[in-house]
């Protein structure tokens, strides 16, 4: 029975444990319930990934109503891949959160915090698995609203303005998405993605070409694309991101940086391929021509700005904008190799950014701040944390034998296969810049001396260091034994592209 309903339970379990956390009311109990729910989801997601690899697309009719009358859950390989990333990061972050949350968030808010974390988690998973354009919006709203709360729930007052700004821009993005879906509904009469894709290629009632050539559908695509760009934080719509990641509690920064933008990219793939694939959005709108330049400029500017940051978390946030740029380049190429490289980089970036933010969280636990000048020599007294930090940093740069190298190499190959020499050169330049900012952090933490008279620092608690190290080793694992992940992302890309083929 569980196997049959796994696809819905993976989302509904965390969604319903969230109100349970509020009823339990105590921080420790809520943490226990949340951990159990997230780990169950992780187990279910692994099971689902295995089944999608074997059987192909999985479907589930909610309420027992056949689509398009009812809502359909439809899990393809790309969805299963992102689902696995989200649940895996969740499973690592939750054990870590116990100590970190106690240090960074007021105690009477703990139950509410875990409820919101679960809601955000469930909302992100709902996006990965849905086959209905409006249901996707509902899940997007759950995760976004929960995110705004998670960012501002800590003690740092600056997080409030960051979250407010994010709320404004995020709402604009979600509204754009909704307007786009509304326009598409006007022209197709359905909300089911596959049904939409079918009707878009049909002839218009007045016989003037297919439905997707109408002005309404073009406007819809423009709204959907810009709305999703806002959520992805693609340059120049990234302004909300740095302060959100910098001032949110450590657990939240780690979870969001590793999952939220990845899921938003999946939304973009859903728009481009699943909904509008047969209508070939890359021909209808100048998407590739705008996306690749924006992405590469974004990667360069963000890497450059990251060098001048004096706050570690802000520095990592700017680096995230750069990394999102790499993923956008792969999608903008509109080739199978590019798409596969983007998906692979999604997995690897989740692992390396997760590692880095968790390691910084360990430092925050002991030192209580993230300004670079306050962290001189701290790494020497926290050996395990700094090991993780160095591994994550090397992966971020893209040093061989780390995960970051594998996907960056795949991306470069995809770019060169289309003979975009300038783009390839700029990617390399941006990687050089990343050596500077990562090097700066490692220099301050390990090579500088602690100021005389500073109090000695202990290593962070075991339950924080252990999850951090697990992710850090993931960087090596996916760097050395990279075939499996590469193969899965290649298949996922192939499936998405095949949907487009007439």
């Amino acid at each position, binding site marked *: 029975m569980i196997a049959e309903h796994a696809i819905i339970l993976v989302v509904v379990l965390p969604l*319903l444990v969230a109100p349970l956390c509020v009823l339990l009311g105590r921080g420790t109990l809520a943490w226990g319930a949340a951990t159990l729910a997230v780990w169950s989801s992780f187990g279910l997601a692994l099971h689902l990934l295995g089944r999608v690899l074997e059987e192909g697309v999985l479907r589930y009719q909610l309420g027992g109503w056949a689509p398009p*009358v009812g809502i359909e859950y439809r899990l393809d390989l790309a969805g299963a891949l992102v689902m696995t990333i989200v649940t895996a990061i969740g499973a690592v972050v939750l054990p870590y959160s116990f100590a970190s949350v106690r240090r960074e968030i007021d105690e009477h808010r703990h139950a509410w915090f875990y409820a919101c974390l679960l809601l955000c988690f469930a909302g992100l998973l709902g996006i990965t698995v849905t086959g209905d354009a409006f249901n996707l919006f509902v899940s997007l709203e759950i995760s976004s609203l929960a995110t705004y709360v998670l960012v501002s729930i800590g003690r740092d007052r600056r997080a409030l303005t960051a979250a407010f700004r994010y709320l404004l821009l995020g709402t604009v993005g979600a509204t754009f998405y909704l307007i786009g879906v509304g326009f598409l509904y006007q*022209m197709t009469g359905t909300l089911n993605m596959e049904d939409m894709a079918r009707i878009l290629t049909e002839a218009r009632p007045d016989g003037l070409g297919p439905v997707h050539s109408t002005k309404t559908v073009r406007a819809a695509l423009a709204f959907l694309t810009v709305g999703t760009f806002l959520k992805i934080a693609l340059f120049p719509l990234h302004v909300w991101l740095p302060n959100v990641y910098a001032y949110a509690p450590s657990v939240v920064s780690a979870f969001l940086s590793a999952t939220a933008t990845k899921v938003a990219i999946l939304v973009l793939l859903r728009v481009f391929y699943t909904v509008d694939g047969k209508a070939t959005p890359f021909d209808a709108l100048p998407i590739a021509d705008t996306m690749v330049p924006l992405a590469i400029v974004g990667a360069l500017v963000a890497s450059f700005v990251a060098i001048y940051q004096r706050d570690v978390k802000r520095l990592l946030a700017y680096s995230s904008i750069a990394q999102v740029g790499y993923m956008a380049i792969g999608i903008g190429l509109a080739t199978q190799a590019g798409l596969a490289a983007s998906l692979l980089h999604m997995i690897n970036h989740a692992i390396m950014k997760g590692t880095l933010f968790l390691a910084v969280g360990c430092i925050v636990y002991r030192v209580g701040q993230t300004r670079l000048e306050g962290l001189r020599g701290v790494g020497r007294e926290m050996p395990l944390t700094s090991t993780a930090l160095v591994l994550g940093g090397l992966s971020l740069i893209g040093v061989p034998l780390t995960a970051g190298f594998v996907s960056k190499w795949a991306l470069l190959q995809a770019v060169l296969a289309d003979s975009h020499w300038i783009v390839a050169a700029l990617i390399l330049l941006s990687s050089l810049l990343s050596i500077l900012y990562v090097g700066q952090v490692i220099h301050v933490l390990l090579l500088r001396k602690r100021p005389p008279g500073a109090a000695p620092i202990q290593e962070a608690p075991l339950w924080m260091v252990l999850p951090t190290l697990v992710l850090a080793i993931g960087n090596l694992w996916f760097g050395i034994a990279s075939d499996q992940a590469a193969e899965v992302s290649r298949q996922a890309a192939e499936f998405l592209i095949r949907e487009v083929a007439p």
Partner: protein
Amino acid sequence: MGVAIDIILLLFLLSIAFAACVTRNLFSAAMLFGIFSLISATLFVVLDAVDVAMTEAAVGTGVSTILILITLASTGYRVSPRPAGRQVLALAVSVVLGATMVYGTLDMPSLGSPDAPVHTHPIAQYYTEVSPVEMGIPNMVTPLLASYRGYDTLGETAVVFTAGIGVLALIGRRRRKDPLPIVEEFREGGANRHRVLRVISKQLIPPILLYACYVQAHGDFGPGGGFQAGVIFASGLMLFMLLFGVEHARRIIRPVVLEKLIALGLLIYGGVGLVNILQGGAFLDYRTLAHDPQHGLHYGILTIELGVGITVAAVITTIIYSFASHLRDHVMQRTLRLRQGADAAQTSPESGA
């Protein structure tokens, strides 16, 4: 006639929106927003979307106006003009946005056209012709929201739940060990001093609450359901709070109870889905609930609507309580500070002179 009403209402909307943009006084902008919502609600009635009109009237006109006013009371209501450069940018973005919207409508089927894809797609026929027979429910909006797209409604309930928890987490009051001293001026609620308001509103509250229960239970046959019932119920409670003050209202329905109710409503809704799975059906397949599938559908819809109603009413009341308590603490601390300042000035007149 219908067209004339549409045009007049739309002209009203336009002029109010313009006035709200132009005014420098946030207090009048808040009132204009309220009127804007009221007219939108009227427009929804004209468009035969009575359900939406109910929600818009209760939330847009009632609750959100009060929330904005409470916020203005603690922040002030004058705005200073923004630098011209940013206004130009904002104007440019708005123009592009508006142009795209207009461009999108060029190929859109005209309003109410029977040839529109929305009406010609087979599912439209299913919802209007098969559903009443299959469900045995005359109001075809209710099965659509509660069953065919019931999972979306579960999601929307989760959104409302998140909003409630979010407000609690950000501005909810911590249970204080040492409560602030009560200041005489705040013992009585503001409007309680005005006899006419008190007498009239007191008589309004019971019918509002009763009407909410009617809307909750009668969703199968007339416009309504959990969302509408929840917001109407909460606006009745809000009226009580405005009359007698938030402290009094908090004593009648305690915030802790509300917090548990928020969670309970969502759990009821999701619980129905889990029971369906245990009965061997799909998640939210209410037909498994009883021997006769149609009875099962009715049980399922009534139960989940109850869940929605509980969560929505509890969340909106919680939000109003939290805002009002926040303002009350703010004003009281300011008054206490002023009074201490005055006392200090009295005890040492030399320093003041």
